[in-house]
């Protein structure tokens, strides 16, 4: 039997849901709420207006933290990558700060910004800054010398060179790095919301557990996190499909 491509994963997920429900029904107890209970919890959240509110809160923090990191880390990384001496000066600091988990910054974030959006945005910013910085630096290192030489040969000024050679040459690698980093940001926001704020999907998970062990709400929060993470990734991938951005896949 020939199935359309999109139908296969849908059927597979449906089968998993059925197995999940059957397993939970066979072992009633505190193992895990079943998919039906989770769906009911999602409906409950929606009816209270909390689902949309928490999703928007989490996305708001991710957007700001991520965009701030993009705006600062990418230009800085491109400059450091281009000028080898700058990189030599900055590299030890980068290499020391980079392995520090963004979660380790939580106490400092609360100290500086208090409990609230700013602290969460800061944590996401920290989590995104270093991966993006390193992506931009390596993107510059990986520009084939022929493109740089050809750009110089046609007598471009530095502004033209940046716009017409440097930028298009690094864009596929930057988009790749941004996609992965956005995934990191989505991981960090959940952790940050468990501690530093009182709204958002991360807060929902902790709050549902603390206020009466509502594990159906916990899993509902997890499902939403997974679904939105998937949507974010698909959105970034659709950017990569723009023809003049995707040259690397076919041409090296």
């Amino acid at each position, binding site marked *: 039997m020939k199935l359309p491509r999109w139908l296969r994963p849908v059927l597979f997920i449906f089968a998993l849901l059925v197995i999940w429900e059957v397993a939970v029904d066979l072992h009633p107890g505190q193992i895990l709420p079943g998919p039906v209970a989770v769906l009911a919890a999602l409906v409950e959240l929606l009816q209270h207006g909390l689902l949309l509110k928490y999703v928007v809160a989490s996305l708001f923090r991710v957007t700001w933290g991520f965009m701030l990191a993009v705006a600062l880390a990418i230009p800085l990384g491109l400059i450091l990558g281009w000028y080898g001496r700058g990189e030599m000066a900055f590299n030890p600091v980068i290499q020391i700060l980079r392995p520090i988990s963004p979660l380790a910054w939580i106490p400092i974030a609360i100290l500086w910004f208090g409990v609230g959006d700013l602290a969460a945005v800061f944590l996401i910013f920290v989590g995104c800054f270093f991966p993006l910085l390193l992506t931009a630096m390596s993107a510059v290192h990986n520009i084939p010398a022929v493109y740089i030489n050809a750009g110089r040969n046609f*007598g471009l000024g530095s502004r033209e060179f940046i716009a017409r050679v440097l930028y*298009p040459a690094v864009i596929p690698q930057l988009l790749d790095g941004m996609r992965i980093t956005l995934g990191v940001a989505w991981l960090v926001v959940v952790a940050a919301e468990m501690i530093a704020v009182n709204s958002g999907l991360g807060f929902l998970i902790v709050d549902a557990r603390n206020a009466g062990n509502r594990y159906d709400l916990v899993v509902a929060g997890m499902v939403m996190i997974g679904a939105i993470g998937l949507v974010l990734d698909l959105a970034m991938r659709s950017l990569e499909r723009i023809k003049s951005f995707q040259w690397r896949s*076919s041409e090296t």
Partner: protein
Amino acid sequence: MSLAEPIVPLPDRKPKLQTRNLGVVYQRDGTGIAALEDINFEVSDGEFVCLVGPSGCGKSTLLNALGGFLSPTTGSVAIDGETVTGPDRRRILVFQEHGVFPWLTVEGNIGFGLSKLTRAEREKRIVHYIEMVRLQGFEKAYPSDLSGGMKQRLQVARALAVDPDVLFLDEPFGSLDSITRVIMRGELLRIWQTERRTILFVTHDIDEAVQLADRVVVLSSRPAKIQDILTVDIPHPRNISSPRYLELRDELLKLIGLAYEI
């Protein structure tokens, strides 16, 4: 012939490019490695000169120094009597492969060096050079959709579009299959005969040199010195089974130090 003696240019043409005691030494792990030593030769305006030599001898280094991409350690390069200090749009280097910009279409690549022209003038040149390299119908195509030979033709078109005096070609057909290579040689000769430019062409292919060049500069192994300069006195189109062709080919093989039989 003495190696240091400058070659006398053909009497009816003025010298276009001239090197004086050109030498390049690379610094690697603290020691200097000589790549080029004491290179002296002249190229006339509109002349087609091939540079041949054993692989790794420094042919590409020489071309990069001539084009201004590499500062010579000793000596100098002059074009129209003016010392070369860096790359310049009046002399364009065509690379062996991956030289076209993959993020631009065929049109975009040919128009790359034309941003200072008016829109109408730019379009006119793009159309002209697309026709010249026979890429009609591929105006909107990206390089990833082109064959290796088409990409090299595109690179030549992009170079010619800025109206350079000198073209440097660094083994431009080296990565193509042998059939495409023969076709490309014919195309390059046709273009060279319509738009007379001075061409310096690096190759490691003896036949390619004898088929294309007015003169062939033979380089020794590293550090490269000029071993000899051979004038190919056969008019185009060249019969590649004529006795003179075979004679010159043999002479070139002998100069490079290859035996007659394998």
